[in-house]
Each structure stands twice: as structure tokens, then as C-alpha cells.
């Protein structure tokens, strides 16, 4: 158990380092230039050269990378090319919005996936299973931005149940905060639930066909005791790992969804960074998102191990 945590932690930092390299490279390889974005397409070659020299963009890529890395490690995320404000505080202010949205979306995805997946598995190869599997396929096929548009049209414009966009911090007005985040979280969560539902269903089918489930029935347990007390924990062990990956995917959706719902989160900052070729903004936001996702993966790996006594005892047996 302890060994597992140490191994995972030992991999954690190299992974982030490699990710940062890939990120830096990717951002610099995409077509377009920061100078043209900042100065406009009419900018003279001299103005562009001056802009790039001032910001150090004319130096070799590896020099730029190590300089950026050194600053980031000291907590300095640089200043925006576009409006010359420090990126660090901006990210810090926007991170809670994105975290709340992602967690809420993930919660919704699981609230759909776990019970429906378990239900479908229990009625494996019967009509209920077919219907639920069809719903999962449908959910998985919906692009999240289209889902968002539909929700705004239905819940925002026609029924006028929820505000169509905007943001209020949770500390200021919790009820309003949740009302504002519900639609964006639904757009992300419903789509994400599709894959999770399939995984839950598949794991649950396997677990339900195992002998210890028959033992539970042989003891006289009813189906709900069997599913929730005997089968769920066994299904959750593999499910969690996929869940962590899906959580990462969810962050990809955050970029567009935050823009649609006018949420001042990291996702919309990423979008601004891409459009303006504002490298410090783009790099730092994506790096922070990466760290969040990797941290979650780490936590999930450890949690999956805690859920499985065979792993907890793996050390003490040797």
C-alpha cells in the first residue's frame, strides 16, 4: 500500500515535467504568431521584430522553455502579451470556477452512470438493458456544445427556469451560484455519463455473474442489498480508473462550455489565450489544468487501492 503511493508519487513529477515540454512545444508549433495577434495583421515587419525581441520570442525554443519553467517553478506565471497583466493571480481567481464546474459535471455524470449502469447490468440482455444502453449511446453521441444550446433554449429561454449564463461566486450567493452552474454542468455531465455508464454496466455484469454474488443471493439477500452492498464496491475498483480519465476529458469540454455560459473560468482563459496567441496565458492555464487532472488521477489510483483489500495487504503478505 505504502509502496504503491510512493511509486505513484515518484511518477507524478516526471509526468508533469514531460507534459510541460509537450505543451510548450505544441503551443509554439501551432500556426499564427503572438506578435501578429497582438499588433494586428497590418503590423510592419519592424514592429513585429521589436515585439518579439522585447518578449524574448526571437530566442531558441529550448532557452524560452527553460526560462519559462524556471519562473513557473518559482510561482511566476509571467505576464500576458495582450494586456500586460500578471497571469498568476488571474489563474488563481479563475481556478475555483472551473473546479466547481468540473466537479459538479463529474458528480452529475456519476449520478447518471452508476445507478443506470448497475440497473442495466442487473437486467442484462433484457429490454431494460437495451433501452439504457441506447440512451447511453445517444448521450455519448451528443456534442456538449449542442447539448448546451438545447438546454439554454429549453430551460433558459422557453421554460425560463434557469438563467442562461453568468457567474456568481458560491460564497456570495450559494443558491444563485448553483442555479448558474447547473446548465453548464449538465451539458458536460450528461455527455460524460455515456462512457461511464458503459463501463459501470460492463463491470457490474462481470461482478454480478461471479460466484460470490450467487452466495449473497443464497444467503437470502434481496437484489438491492446484493447490488449496493456486495457488487458495487467490486465494480468501483476498475470503474474509478476510467472515471479519472473521463474527468480529464471533461476538462476539454470546459473550454467551450465556459465560453457559451459566460463563466469566468480557466477554460475561457484558455480560449482567449489561443485566439490571441497569448502564450503565457495559454501555457499556464493548460499547465494548471494538467496538474489538476494528474492530481485527481493520483488520488483515484490510491482510492482504488484502498477499496481493494487485496492491494492493501499485498505488502504485508510478502
Amino acid at each position: 500500500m505504502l509502496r504503491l503511493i510512493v511509486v505513484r508519487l515518484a511518477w507524478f513529477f516526471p509526468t508533469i515535467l514531460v507534459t510541460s515540454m509537450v505543451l510548450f512545444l505544441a503551443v509554439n508549433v501551432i500556426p499564427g504568431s503572438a506578435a501578429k495577434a497582438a499588433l494586428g495583421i497590418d503590423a510592419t515587419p519592424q514592429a513585429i521584430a521589436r515585439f518579439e525581441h522585447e518578449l524574448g520570442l526571437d530566442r531558441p525554443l529550448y532557452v524560452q522553455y527553460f526560462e519559462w519553467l524556471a519562473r513557473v517553478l518559482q510561482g511566476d506565471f509571467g505576464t500576458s502579451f495582450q494586456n500586460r497583466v500578471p497571469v498568476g493571480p488571474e489563474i488563481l481567481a479563475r481556478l475555483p470556477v472551473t473546479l466547481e464546474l468540473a466537479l459538479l459535471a463529474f458528480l452529475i455524470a456519476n449520478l447518471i452512470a452508476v445507478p443506470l449502469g448497475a440497473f442495466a447490468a442487473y437486467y442484462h440482455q433484457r429490454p431494460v438493458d437495451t433501452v439504457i444502453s441506447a440512451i447511453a449511446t445517444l448521450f455519448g453521441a451528443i456534442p456538449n456544445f449542442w447539448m448546451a444550446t438545447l438546454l439554454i433554449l429549453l430551460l433558459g429561454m422557453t421554460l425560463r427556469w434557469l438563467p442562461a449564463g453568468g457567474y456568481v461566486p458560491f460564497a456570495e450567493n450559494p443558491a444563485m451560484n448553483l442555479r448558474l452552474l447547473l446548465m453548464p454542468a449538465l451539458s458536460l455531465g450528461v455527455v460524460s455519463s455515456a462512457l461511464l455508464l458503459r463501463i459501470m454496466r460492463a463491470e457490474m455484469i462481470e461482478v454480478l455473474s461471479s460466484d460470490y454474488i450467487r452466495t449473497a443471493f443464497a444467503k437470502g439477500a434481496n437484489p438491492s442489498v446484493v447490488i449496493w452492498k456486495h457488487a458495487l464496491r467490486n465494480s468501483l475498483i476498475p470503474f474509478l480508473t476510467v472515471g479519472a480519465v473521463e474527468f480529464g476529458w471533461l476538462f476539454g469540454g470546459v473550454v467551450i462550455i465556459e465560453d457559451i455560459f459566460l463563466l469566468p473560468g480557466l477554460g475561457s482563459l484558455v480560449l482567449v489565450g489561443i485566439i490571441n496567441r497569448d502564450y503565457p496565458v495559454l501555457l499556464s492555464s493548460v499547465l494548471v489544468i494538467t496538474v489538476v487532472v494528474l492530481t485527481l488521477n493520483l488520488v483515484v489510483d490510491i482510492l482504488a487501492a484502498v477499496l481493494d483489500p487485496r492491494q492493501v495487504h499485498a505488502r504485508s503478505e510478502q
Partner: protein
Amino acid sequence: MQELIRPRRRLDTPPVLAVDNLSVQLQTRQGTARVVEGVSLEVWPGEIVGVIGESGSGKTMTALSILRLMPHVARIVGGDIRLSGTSLPSLSDAQMRKLRGNRMALIPQDPLSALNPVQPIGRQVGEPFVLHRRSRWQTAWEQAVRLLGAVHLPLPETRAAEYPHQFSGGMRQRAMTAMALALEPDLLIADEPTTALDVTIQAQVLRLLGEIRDEHETAILLITHDLGVVAESCDWVYVMYAGRIVEEGPVGRLFAHPSHPYTQALLNATPSIELAQAELAAIPGRIPSPYEIGPGCRFADRCAQRLARCAQEPPLLPVAAEHLARCWLLEEVRA
């Protein structure tokens, strides 16, 4: 007056388990599989009754049908199952749940896969108290420790908190037995309880079943493919082949005078110490598929003593008092 061969049979009470002309079919894409057909058997209090047959003989499906734990493609299409006189097929699922783990319990084949890997042993052994007696978990745990001690598991207090993967095969089967015994059921169904175990552990588990029978007058239905297990522990035996009972009788009598060619072949195919040097006789051919069963004797294709009339299936014919076999040869001998 006829000698009473089945000593535990009583006239004042019904048997603990009476399976009467039971037929079970599987409905699958391949068609209808007749996996159990016209099976009748009885288990009386304090009796250990063996059901022996190779895989595909329908013995496990018979056991699961009694508990209503068969796969959902299986249907009971005929016959009756009575537990101390109560007809089970007519009960609702909720009524069946009240009986399972309470009045009748299962000891499964492979104790490792039959134990939940993520729950401590004590919790699993004590669970019947929570399910049927509405006990609190703490009481159930204390009962589990007591039961684990009763099945001779050393250090039951410590062991109860451990997980299945920390147990040896024999310990796991003891834990499964403790779980099945929890509420002192009238009927124990042991589905190949020794198959997954070492030979030395097998003997311990069989001895334990004997103890349970002696202490609680429990009726035990022992499903097995091992003639040695039957010889060692059973009072009465039913031989199953391709969904049919082909021979039944008291163990000593049946082993001394096997009267169905299948039973004879089965005995010849089993190694014994005296015959260690002799060649084992394998039974030629395979058990027929349950999807394609004809009107004749189901063993005819593999039978060395086949007759013309075997194209029609014989009924169970008397060999001696309470010893029956499903073979035309019995009439030939008499004629």
C-alpha cells in the same frame, strides 16, 4: 416383513426435501435444452444424500433449482420441490428469499470465488443474522466468530477480520460452511464442496459435514462427481446422467451391486487401491447434448450392453428393495 433399508425415513413427517418429477429447461438461441428431466429425490433429516454425475448431467442445475438460483434462461417446466412439505415453485421471490440462507443454505464449489473479495470474512459469515433476524452488525459479527470457532477455524476472533485472500482453501471452505450453518438450516445443499480442495482438506470438510449432520440432524444434499466422496460420507445416492436419474439406492448396496451400465462404467473408471495396477476403463463417447435428446435410453450410445429395446427409454426398474435402476437389462435378467 421387508427390511427398512432407508433408516431415517419416517412416516410421521414429510422429508426435509422432496423433489418430485422435476424438469428444468434452458431457453437459449440454440433452442431448448432439457437439462433436468423427471428427477425425483428425497432427503430425510440427518441424512447425507449424494447426487453423482459427470459435468452436464444436470446435478448442479437440480441443486440450483431447489434454491431458485439457476441462470435466468432456466425454467422449471414441470414437477414440484417441497421443503418440509411446502411447495417451493409456487412461492414468490420474496418468500423464497426468506427461506434461502435461513431454512436451506448452499455450500458452493469454489470457496475462493464464492467469497466476496472486498468484505472481511466475519461480515460475510454473519450476514444471514442481519438479513433474516434483523440483528445488528455487531451481534452478527459475534455470531460469525462463534460459528468460525464451531467449524474448527483456529483464532476465530482474529480470522474474522481478515479477507478471503488471506485464507487457505480449507479455511475458506470452513468459512463458507460456517456461513451456510449460521441459522441452522434444515437443508444444506453442498455443490461439489471438495472439488477445489487438496485431498487432505477434502477429508476434513467431509468430516465436518458429518459432524453437522450428527449435531443438528441437518439434511444434506451432496452434489459431486467423486465416487470416493459418496462412498465416504453418503447414506443414499442418486446417479444422474444427461438430466435423468439412472440409478438410486443405499450407498453400500449400490456400490456392491451397480446395476446400470453407466454406474458400472463409473465405478470401473475410478482408481482404487486394490486395482492400482489395473488399467482404468474410460467410458467411450460423450454425454449427449441437452439440445438433442432422443426418445431412447440416454446412455445407449456409450453402452456396451445395448439392446434393441434401448431405442425406447426404460423407467426406473427395481433391482432390490429401494434400489432402482433405469435399464432394460433388469427385465432381461428376470425373463
